């Protein structure tokens, strides 16, 4: 008998505000530990929070993008627990009255089908700090833990989906779509390597038609790839447990991407009682119709609209367009390369093919690509105008990736320009024919079908002589002319 998988996601997205959710400290990362930690972030006695209105506006932008009800009144609550990187002893978050209500996200799957994933709600909350366990000791040499509160108080939205996904591919497609939405909105940089977007995945399995099974939560997945693997791993584990007569325990699990293993972190029984209650230091957040309309009118182009435009304007397939719109940076890169190169189809193929492969291999984002959109556009121009062949183009791309300069510079310095000068090529062809009388005789004695194969030898020789720079079409023409002559 088969199994059905039920998946729901909780997605934390760090909002791209200059200052924190409740203090004026910078949200910049990579600074000296605790250099972006104010009196408020340190939870000094007597300090009070003041909400960052831009974070509210970012959350509203997200709500509008998924067609959700915006909370005209939302309430910050305190989630109480003790942890060293949680300076106040509570996290300020939202529970009963979140800023973003129910909404929906539409997905285009690889097999061409469409799917809608419902959003239960999205709420605003502050991030915690970081515990630094490495290389701290006191004067007597005892190991100590350092606390860095630079991240403490950074604004997040937590997006909670309904359990509407039924396999890892759908979950990843959903995650990608959220990434596309938040980056298109400009409310987050979506940089998963920095933990600026991270996923908690709730998974359960059941026999078709049966009620929902017990779920587990795998926390803090910070790449699409790990998410996909972690889901597959957990689904297999649950099925294995059930098929062996066991029971799935409701627990929180931690996935290790390096070893592709997961372990239980804590079970439901050890769950904290967070003693939520409305934060008395903050007034309810009120949002006017006017503010909502103003934000709606100013929304940038969203992934679905962009996708439709790509299909229309560049004659791309739905699926290709969806992939290119997966995040704002990729979409922008594609459009820039397509415009400069003058060939959208070619640009799309290069972006989804060579470029994506190289980015994945080096595990970097498109923003860090050594080959810029301008470079790729230039490369496409050179293919189009016959300066280089597609084959040479890959070589130029590699050199450009390695930082050897712009495509034009590389073509020039490496002398990769196609030999299109008929006189020069003719001389080379003449030499080859003169130097290989046996092959010429063999060719001339063959019928048309065999000649098509045998001409390959002369093409090879010519390419060798020109280091691949001969224009293939021209060369073919010339050879046929001379040999058949």
């Amino acid at each position, binding site marked *: 008998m088969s199994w059905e998988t039920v998946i729901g996601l909780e997605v934390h997205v760090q909002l791209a505000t200059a200052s924190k959710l409740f203090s004026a400290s910078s949200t910049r990362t990579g600074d000296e530990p605790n250099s972006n930690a104010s*009196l408020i972030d340190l*939870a000094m*006695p007597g*300090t009070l929070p*003041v909400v960052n209105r831009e974070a509210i506006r970012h959350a509203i932008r997200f709500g509008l993008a998924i067609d959700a009800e915006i909370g005209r009144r939302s309430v910050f609550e305190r989630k109480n627990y*003790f942890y060293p990187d949680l300076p106040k*002893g509570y996290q300020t978050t939202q529970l009963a009255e979140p800023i973003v209500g129910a909404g929906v996200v539409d997905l285009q799957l690889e097999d061409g089908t469409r799917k809608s994933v419902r959003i239960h709600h999205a709420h605003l909350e502050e991030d915690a700090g970081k515990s630094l366990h490495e290389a701290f000791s006191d004067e007597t040499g005892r190991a100590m833990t350092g606390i860095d509160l630079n991240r403490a108080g950074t604004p997040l939205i937590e997006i909670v989906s309904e359990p509407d996904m039924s396999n890892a591919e759908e979950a990843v497609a959903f995650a990608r779509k959220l990434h596309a939405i938040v980056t298109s909105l400009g409310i987050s940089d979506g940089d998963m390597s920095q933990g600026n977007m991270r996923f908690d995945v709730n998974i359960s399995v059941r026999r078709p038609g049966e009620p929902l099974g017990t779920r587990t939560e795998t926390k803090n997945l910070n790449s699409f790839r790990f998410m996909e693997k972690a889901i597959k791993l957990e689904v297999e584990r649950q099925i294995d447990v059930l098929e062996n007569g066991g029971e799935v325990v409701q627990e929180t699990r931690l996935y290790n991407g390096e070893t592709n293993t997961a372990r239980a972190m804590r079970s439901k029984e050890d769950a904290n009682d967070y*003693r939520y*209650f409305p934060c008395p*230091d903050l007034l309810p957040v009120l949002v006017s119709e006017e503010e909502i309309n103003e934000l709606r009118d100013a929304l940038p182009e969203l992934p679905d609209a962009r996708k439709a435009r790509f299909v229309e304007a560049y004659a791309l397939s739905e699926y290709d367009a969806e992939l290119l719109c997966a995040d704002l940076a990729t979409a922008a890169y594609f459009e820039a390369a397509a415009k400069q190169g003058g060939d959208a189809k070619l640009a799309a193929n290069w972006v989804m093919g060579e470029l994506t492969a190289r980015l994945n291999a080096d595990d970097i984002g498109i923003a860090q690509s050594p080959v810029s959109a301008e470079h790729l556009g230039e490369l496409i121009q050179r293919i189009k105008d016959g300066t280089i062949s597609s084959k040479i183009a890959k070589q130029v791309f590699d050199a450009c990736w390695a930082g050897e300069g712009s495509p034009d510079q590389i073509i020039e310095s490496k002398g990769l320009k196609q030999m299109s000068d008929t006189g020069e090529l003719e001389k080379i062809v003449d030499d080859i024919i003169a130097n290989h009388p046996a092959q010429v005789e063999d060719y001339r004695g063959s019928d048309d079908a065999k000649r098509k194969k045998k001409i390959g030898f002369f093409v090879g020789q010519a390419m060798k002589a020109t280091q691949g720079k001969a224009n293939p079409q021209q060369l073919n023409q010339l050879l046929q002319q001379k040999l058949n002559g």
Partner: protein
Amino acid sequence: MHTKTLTELRAGLAAREFSSRELTEHFLRRIRQFDGELNSLITVTEEQALAQADAADATLARGEGGLLTGLPVAHKDIFCTEGVRTSCGSRMLDNFIAPYTATVVEKMAAQGAVMLGKTNMDEFAMGSSNETSFYGPVKNPWDQERVPGGSSGGAAATLAARLTPAATGTDTGGSIRQPAALNGVTGLKPTYGRVSRWGMIAFASSLDQAGPMGLSAADCALMLGAMAGHDDKDSTSLDEPVGDYLNDLNQNLEGLRIGVPEEFFPDTLDGAIAESSREALRELEKQGAKLVPLSLPSIKLSVPAYYVIAPAEASSNLSRFDGVRYGHRCDDPVDLLDLYKRSRSEGFGEEVKRRILVGTYALSAGYYDAYYRRAQQVRRLIRDDFARAFAEVDVIMGPTSPETAFKIGAKVDDPINMYMADVFTIAVNLAGLPALSMPSGFVNGLPVGTQVIGNYFQEGRILNVAHRYQLATDWHQRIPGAFA
């Protein structure tokens, strides 16, 4: 000089009868002379006070100055003062040198006030007797075997003993008004949101409010003018214009409608205390006020509601005292849990622990609806009661406390009895209203206070009522014999 009110001292400074330095030195001398016994101050900031006094004298010499230039004030040790220990009466913060200054302190300093020191208080403002302070109980200047009330007991006692002419307090459930009553001084809890809470160590955030304590309503009006106002750093501070409190003081009381709730004069109330407040009402009647009997039926629920809401908020507010970043940390913690447990067990006193436990319980899964949510519902009922009453009257009056100062140690083992004595003050905090306590007589040689409650932002009105009363009476001018 110490027998003068703040208002009189201000006039004296303006007339160059004495300098701020002379004034400051005089009070510092009195503190040295008397406070060893009284224990009303935790920290005396002599050097800083003299420097501020000299600066004030220079300002005055230029013919300049603010509302409080050159006038000494003692701040409750709940207000953060940069570079000065801010203990909140707790071992937890015995080593805490505040890295910044509370808005209240800053605003008063900006008006030229001279800080004499930090007054003793119940630990984290939790108590009505000043016995929960880590620094030991404060003595009541009227009878040193008795408590001064709390939690602003140090402030009230130091004023009554004339060791300072002005003090700040905070009031979460009566912590300004009750000690004011028990020491024969005047204290005002403003409307919630009138005075910034920035830098004031939180006990129960939705109830805490700072206010002035002085020898007269006029003194409180002078101080409130300096303390009040919107603060961007406190989201719950309200953007209402600050009244001209000094100007409001002298309005006549013709036609003033005074609500007299039956709940403030229950049969069980000490007859002499009731009579003191009734006498005050008669005096105001003489001046043209009309008494309007009324009822605030929900008030009887205020003590239980308060003792759910306040501890609930406190249990969360006090979580930051974990031994990690500042404050008391236990010796040689073996692990994180040990660090938390021992730092907090050692750092907090019994009453604070009791309230953290009660509050944690009230917010727990399965109890939240029965306690916290229900208490919030009661809070709305109380607010509605007052709203109905203020549709008919201008102020509401009654005794501040059902009892006079009790013997130190008498209630230590009976917290419920201690809580019940907050019955007349607590509803005001739950509703967020302004209220003042003024001296209205003595019972067995101990001061009694009468409370004047106003509608939201009617501080000017209640100060006016108290001032007119004080023009006709001299209870507020009495000085305990040992400190004359």
